[in-house]
């Protein structure tokens, strides 16, 4: 009874790995070629969408894979952006050299906040991450080195092989490549031993521990890897904007990233990317909404949780 409806025949065709790769290559090709036909506005919006896709994929590791609610994800993104910002604008360090430093700093932030708190119950963890996110923002606002409330300006644009990355199209490709890399890492992680351990801990923590999975260590991995994604995204964000201010890293930013993850379907890579795109494109398409944007997002999030808690494109349960 193959091909009883177009949908099942499509999903049948998609089953072999080979055919999936064809589709993915096709999509990547389209994404690569879009700048040839798009104007600056479209390019800017799409760049932003890829940027959110990286952040959402990073948070997806924490929320989707390991099942930990993180309400302060913007903090890791802030740590990355500020590290790059401070090093390039105040100390004149080359942009590319700041990346390892920024990644280490955001991973360290993940360790500091995750280490002691991952033993806590999940709802306590949510509040702790929320508090942590606010602490990072307030620190950035009040320290001298971070430029206070007005933030940092004059962050260097990176150059590669003598080409200075300054135009919109350059950053489109930068974020596209980073997003593809993020997808690849997420995909490999999902199917790794660690990925299975995350899934186990998410579904049943006690059973996982009884099977010899170090609960805290596994969660900490999720936290630190998630923080790393945020840190890298932050570096390139700082380079693209050349100016950052603490108000970019508010609680609403963390919620927005979480919304992208929830919207598309926690734990599912294509779902998360769709969620990130929906997040960025929706307000662009409905420009007239203005201040209603977050209200509508809130209602959408509520409706999704009530009627379709697995998101638009949920993760398939692994069959035994």
């Amino acid at each position, binding site marked *: 009874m193959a091909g009883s409806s177009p949908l099942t025949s499509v999903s049948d065709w998609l089953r072999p790995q080979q055919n999936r790769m064809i589709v993915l290559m096709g999509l990547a090709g389209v994404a690569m070629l879009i700048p040839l036909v798009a104007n600056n506005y479209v390019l800017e919006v799409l760049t932003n969408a890829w940027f959110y896709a990286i952040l959402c994929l990073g948070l997806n590791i924490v*929320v989707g894979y390991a*099942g930990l*609610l993180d*309400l302060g994800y913007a903090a890791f993104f802030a740590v990355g952006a500020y590290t790059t910002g401070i090093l390039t604008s105040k100390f004149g360090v080359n942009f590319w050299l700041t990346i390892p430093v920024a990644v280490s700093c955001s991973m360290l932030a993940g360790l500091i906040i995750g280490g*002691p*708190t991952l033993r*806590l*119950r*999940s*709802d*306590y963890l*949510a*509040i*702790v991450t*929320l*508090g*942590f996110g*606010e*602490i990072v923002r*307030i*620190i950035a*606002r*009040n320290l001298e080195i971070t430029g206070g409330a007005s933030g940092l300006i004059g962050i260097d644009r990176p150059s590669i092989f003598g080409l200075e990355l300054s135009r919109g199209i350059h950053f489109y490709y930068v974020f596209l490549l980073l997003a593809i890399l993020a997808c690849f890492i997420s995909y490999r992680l999902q199917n790794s031993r660690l990925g299975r351990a995350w899934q186990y801990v998410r579904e049943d*923590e*006690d059973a996982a521990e009884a099977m010899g999975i170090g609960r805290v260590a596994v969660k900490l991995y999720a936290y630190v890897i998630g923080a790393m994604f945020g840190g890298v995204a932050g570096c390139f964000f700082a380079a693209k904007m050349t100016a950052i201010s603490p108000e970019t890293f508010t*609680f609403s930013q963390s*919620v927005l990233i*979480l919304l992208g993850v*929830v919207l598309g379907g*926690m734990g599912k890579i294509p779902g998360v990317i769709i969620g990130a795109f929906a997040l960025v494109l929706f307000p662009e398409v409905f420009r007239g909404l203005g*201040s*209603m944007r*977050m*209200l509508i*997002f*809130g*209602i959408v*999030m*509520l409706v999704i*949780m*009530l009627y379709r*808690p697995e998101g638009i494109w949920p993760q398939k349960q692994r069959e035994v």
Partner: protein
Amino acid sequence: MSTSDIILQQLANGLILGSFYALVALGYTMVYGIIKLLNFAHGDLYMVGGFVGFLVLSLVSGLMGSSWAGILCSMVFSMLAVGLLGVIIQRIAYVPMLQAPRLSILITALAVSMVLSNGVMAITDGEYLAFNTDLGYEGLDLGNVFISYTQLVLVVSAALLMIILYLFVHKTLYGKAMRAIAIDQDACRLMGINVNRIIALTFFIGSSLAAAAGVMAGVYYGSLHFFMGFVIGLKAFTAAVIGGIGSIPGAMLGGLVLGLLEAFGTQIPFVGSEWKDVFSFGLLILLLIFKPTGLLGKTEIERM
């Protein structure tokens, strides 16, 4: 100002701040105690309470003036309206989620909070509203320390509300049912307690206490903003954890402790008031790590 004056002044400031925290913390702790839900939207109910109070006050000010009579009327109305809102939220958003995984219900609560705060933002265009009252600026002048009558009345009414709550929970049949449900919901159902109604009642009481605090904060600070629920929600949660989450006297104590700590925290040299929030959130994190049961909470062993 001498040291003793500073201490007295900060004591007064801390008490008033602490009574707001305590009122909001009570709602957190009651809801958590009964259905183990961390209601993220609770801080926003405080904010909505402030706005409803403002609305009612501007309606009744022609009849009763905007002095204490008008404020009392608007506070009572706001408590009723927000209490009902709390019950509606519980019915729509939380009841269907009670059997769902913890992550889902937390995200749902977050979504409710977004809807409330951004809904108010859309209505008010994100502007600050001036909460004008006809209360004078008279007060007790104790040398260098000044305590206005407004402050006194607010602290006393917060204390009054808490005493009423305490009596309700410990002396009435409904209160008894509430305490019983917190211990074992299924057993209560078998004993013929209408569990759903008691949970709704808990939401009603918690929300209306938050609304009362919202109106009081409007009177005290003189302005309202759609985002004011966020920080106080976090602070009140801290207060609830300090006292031991789930414990009603704990929430009252925790609120006062946090209020006093913050008031005196501003007096520490080199630490300006802009670090106040870092101070209390840091305290929350440390507390959760080292003593998650709080001051008055019971040690419990539970499945994660």
